């Protein structure tokens, strides 16, 4: 019977933190389809693993699973990119090229598309982008972020500092009045 209540807890937890989970997935993977699939995978994994959930911060536990599902997808994506032959296959080459706005911007309205902050955030390496999203947008504490990333708090702090510096530098170097030059 413990299992029944745990499952109910996981279902409730997943639905309550679905926006947070999707937001993380969306920023990591860049598009709606992949982010949705990753979050759905994460829910299935969480539901199967509900017996092993041992208390602690539930949101961090679920987001850690979401993040692992996203990283698995990213790993596959990087592998596919590496293996693609560009010669004589323009379509594949197109897919393998780093994608700018099109990758992410489909459903963004023009105002958000103009936002330099969002654009530079998208341009940051994954490790800095995820920590900034978790801290500044999702407002997780250092401890929760450390649990999600499964890293020491010191690493969270150094990545956060570095990510902020990079983003701040990108914004001040390029000035908010200049038109974006695609990262």
């Amino acid at each position: 019977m413990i299992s029944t209540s745990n499952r109910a807890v996981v279902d409730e937890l997943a639905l309550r933190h679905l926006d947070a989970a999707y937001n993380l997935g969306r920023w990591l993977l860049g598009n709606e389809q992949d982010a949705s699939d990753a979050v759905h995978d994460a829910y299935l994994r969480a539901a199967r693993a509900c017996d092993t959930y041992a208390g602690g911060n539930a949101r961090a536990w679920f987001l850690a699973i979401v993040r692992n599902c996203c990283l698995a997808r990213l790993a596959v994506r990087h592998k596919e990119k590496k293996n693609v032959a560009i010669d004589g296959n323009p379509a594949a080459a197109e897919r393998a090229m780093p994608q700018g706005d099109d990758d992410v911007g489909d459903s963004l309205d023009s105002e958000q598309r103009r936002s330099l902050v969002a654009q530079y955030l998208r341009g940051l390496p994954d490790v800095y982008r995820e920590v900034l999203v978790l801290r500044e947008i999702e407002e997780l504490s250092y401890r929760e972020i450390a649990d999600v990333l499964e890293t020491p708090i010191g690493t969270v702090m150094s990545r956060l500092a570095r990510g902020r510096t990079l983003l701040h530098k990108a914004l001040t170097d390029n000035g908010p009045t200049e038109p974006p030059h695609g990262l």
Partner: protein
Amino acid sequence: MDCKTASDLLPLYFDGELDRATSRGFEAHVDACPACRDALVALDALRQALRHEAPRFDAPGALRARVIASAAGMPTPEARQFRVALRPWMAMAASLLLAFVAGGAALAAWQRASSASAVEAQQTRDLFASHWRALAATSPIDVVSTDQHTVKPWFAGKVATAPVVRDFKAEGYALIGGRIDYVGNDRVPVLVYQHGKHLVDVFILPGGGVASDGSPVQMQGYVLERAMLGGQAVAIVSDMDRAELTRFRDLLDSQVQGD
């Protein structure tokens, strides 16, 4: 409080991670220090920009519907009862077994043997992932030092077992620092060496590590090899070529216990 201390505490204060007494000390400094105040303002400007301009994506309705549908379609607790009912029984059997064998060693060995290969595969993936993550980070090292007497005490209090730290600079493998990383659920010390242009991670494995047939594992051009360093099981991960790796492993293996 001086400016150096204050600037170290600044992100902590800004993120609400400082205790109240230290916060008050920090605020007193900021009141008197325009430079620190500006830094705080800059952090806040960045946060406001992020919160207002970087969209928080809400889960699409289709995803919510999918999760709800999956929740309804998952195996019911009745169907799972077989597994669930087994658990208390297994726990009892385990405790009986424990009562009969001296200590828990036999049980641990049995558990290890039953899932050793799965555990080893998982651990191997973890180790490669840690190495790659460290390479991708700004610095693969938390404590930068070429001095083994600096690196070793740094680990004290951060991990359960202090590693044996040796520098092999004379042999061409210079100690450049250490860091803490995760392998499974364990925080483990990692010694970082440099050999030419290659970065070498030596993970001190928890609980003596897992059994292995001793052959190196390769993944995407990186090689993992297990070894012993002063009585502790370690795993070496690097992109060195095979001969250099073997030489390094032999070097580690030749170290005796104690410091």
